[in-house]
């Protein structure tokens, strides 16, 4: 079933300047989609446009067959959640209070928070302030809040950048679990191509505001496309464990021939 349908989308931070041009794709229920692309390609812009944070200049986005501009605020928040960084002012909040706010769109109807605490191993940090957490813990809390919002579609903007590999894997494992068992549809942007290919069902490669390629990791991570978009030399191998493509960047000093 098609959950999200983006058709001929033009959008940007301003009504006059289009950062995204001619974007069209579809997302099925329970898919894990990765958005990859170089810096300033429009990854965040795409996520924010889907989250209704930026104006749509042309084209439209349909969620569940209905134009996203026609949803009411709370109704939209019940369907789509967006995970971002917090203001430093709000870091004086307790973890528990912060997580509780996820139920605002549902008018604070009961929710099984204990299960959430268990899944994300939050028991020990519940009564801490957000500012007392390490960046790995903070990221875990922010992501678990997005899950507690119980949306149909969750958007993540580089959820694991600037974390160590242990935290990266544990957070993405959790997301994958929710994706597989609870049929949560996820769209997430990535800097780390190898992680994106391990976890995502399909990848969208964006370059200069336009879609370069959509498809399974095997289709998208072709060395010709990657070299062209990222303007660097790479070698693509296969990960022996998952059989997914694995990218090794090649420093210029090795390019002899």
């Amino acid at each position, binding site marked *: 079933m098609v959950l999200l349908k983006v058709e001929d989308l033009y959008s940007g931070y301003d009504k006059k300047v289009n950062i995204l041009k001619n974007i069209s794709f579809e997302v099925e229920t329970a898919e894990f989609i990765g958005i990859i692309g170089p810096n300033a390609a429009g990854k965040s812009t795409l996520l924010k446009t889907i*989250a209704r944070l930026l104006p749509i200049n042309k084209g439209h986005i349909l969620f569940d067959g209905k134009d996203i501009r026609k949803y009411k605020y709370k*109704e939209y928040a*019940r369907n789509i959640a967006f995970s971002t*960084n*917090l*203001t430093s002012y*709000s870091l*004086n*909040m307790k973890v528990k*209070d912060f997580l509780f706010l996820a139920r605002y769109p549902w008018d604070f109807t009961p929710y099984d928070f204990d299960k959430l605490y268990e899944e994300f191993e939050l028991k020990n940090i519940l009564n801490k302030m957000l500012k007392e957490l390490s960046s790995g813990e903070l990221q875990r809390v922010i992501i678990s809040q997005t899950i507690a919002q119980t949306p149909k579609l969750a958007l993540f903007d580089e959820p694991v950048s600037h974390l160590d590999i242990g935290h990266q894997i544990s957070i993405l494992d959790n997301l994958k679990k929710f994706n597989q068992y609870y049929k949560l549809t996820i769209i997430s942007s990535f800097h780390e191509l190898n992680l994106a290919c391990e976890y995502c069902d399909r990848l969208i490669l964006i370059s200069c505001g336009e879609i370069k390629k959509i498809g399974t990791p095997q289709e998208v991570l072709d060395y010709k496309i990657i070299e062209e978009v990222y303007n660097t030399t790479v070698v693509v191998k296969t990960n022996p464990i998952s059989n997914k493509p694995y990218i090794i960047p090649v420093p210029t000093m090795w390019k002899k021939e």
Partner: protein
Amino acid sequence: MTKKIFTTITFVIFILNLLHSLLFRLDLNKILISVINKQETVEYKILTQIRIPRTIATHLVGAGLAVVGCVLQSIFLNPLCEGYTLGISSAAGLGVVVSTILMLPLNRFFSSFFGVLVAMISIHFLLRLFRRTIDVSFILSGVVLNFFFSSIIIILTLFFDPYKTHYVLLWLLGSFSSIDTTSILISCTVILILLVAIVSYAKQMDIIILGKEKAITLGVKEQKVKSVLIFICVVICALCVSISGTISFVGVIVPNVVKSITGLKHKEWFLTSMFTGSIFISLCDNLARNLMYPMEIPINVLTGILGSIFFIVYILKGNFYGVVKS
């Protein structure tokens, strides 16, 4: 533990202070007798027509100023915001001074309200003109505005009849003495209603401080809530100025001290700040009346001195976490 101590101490101060501000230098026996005999003695009149309105006014102005501080701090995400530092109070003061000089047939509330309104609208259009939004530089521009309006007030009072403007100047320094019972009661009812309105937005404020993006994607109409709350804050500020002149600093001290006890849960924070602010202002008013009796010290002086000492102790103790760097 700190919560318990804090609550007990504030309650004790609240009761003592309340009794003091109502019954100070009055003979309790005479009042009781006059209540029982239904006679209108001088003491009885003082109690009902001066003391009670003044006590209500001090408490509500304190509550209003403190909670306006809380709201503005959370909206602009800056622990130094309040009605005074953002220039709202001085704009209201300017409104009153102008209407006094021009002898406009407006009472104090409307003139202060128009002062603020004119100031806000002109700032809004100036920002539009220069294509700037009110965000980062807001506190700085507020400080500038504050100086600007205060200077204009002083220029105006220098150029016009000093007899006419003298009492306005004294009142601007903060004083509850020039009180007219009916208008006070009306203003106080309005403040009370607006305070209730602010508390009803507490949950939305919890979400709004997370940032614009998070607020919208959690289903809060962020812009609308912010504008409504700013409007309410401006009205409360204008009312407070019209009752007691510009009282500075309360809106910074009280919210920050209270925040270190309640944490950033807005409902608790708002309510506790209101309570603490009302006690603080009432206490300052009592001191202002008694320290140099029978002369009254401008209340602004007292809040300044008491507040800064208290605040510095607080910062040094390390309980202060208003200014955060993550």
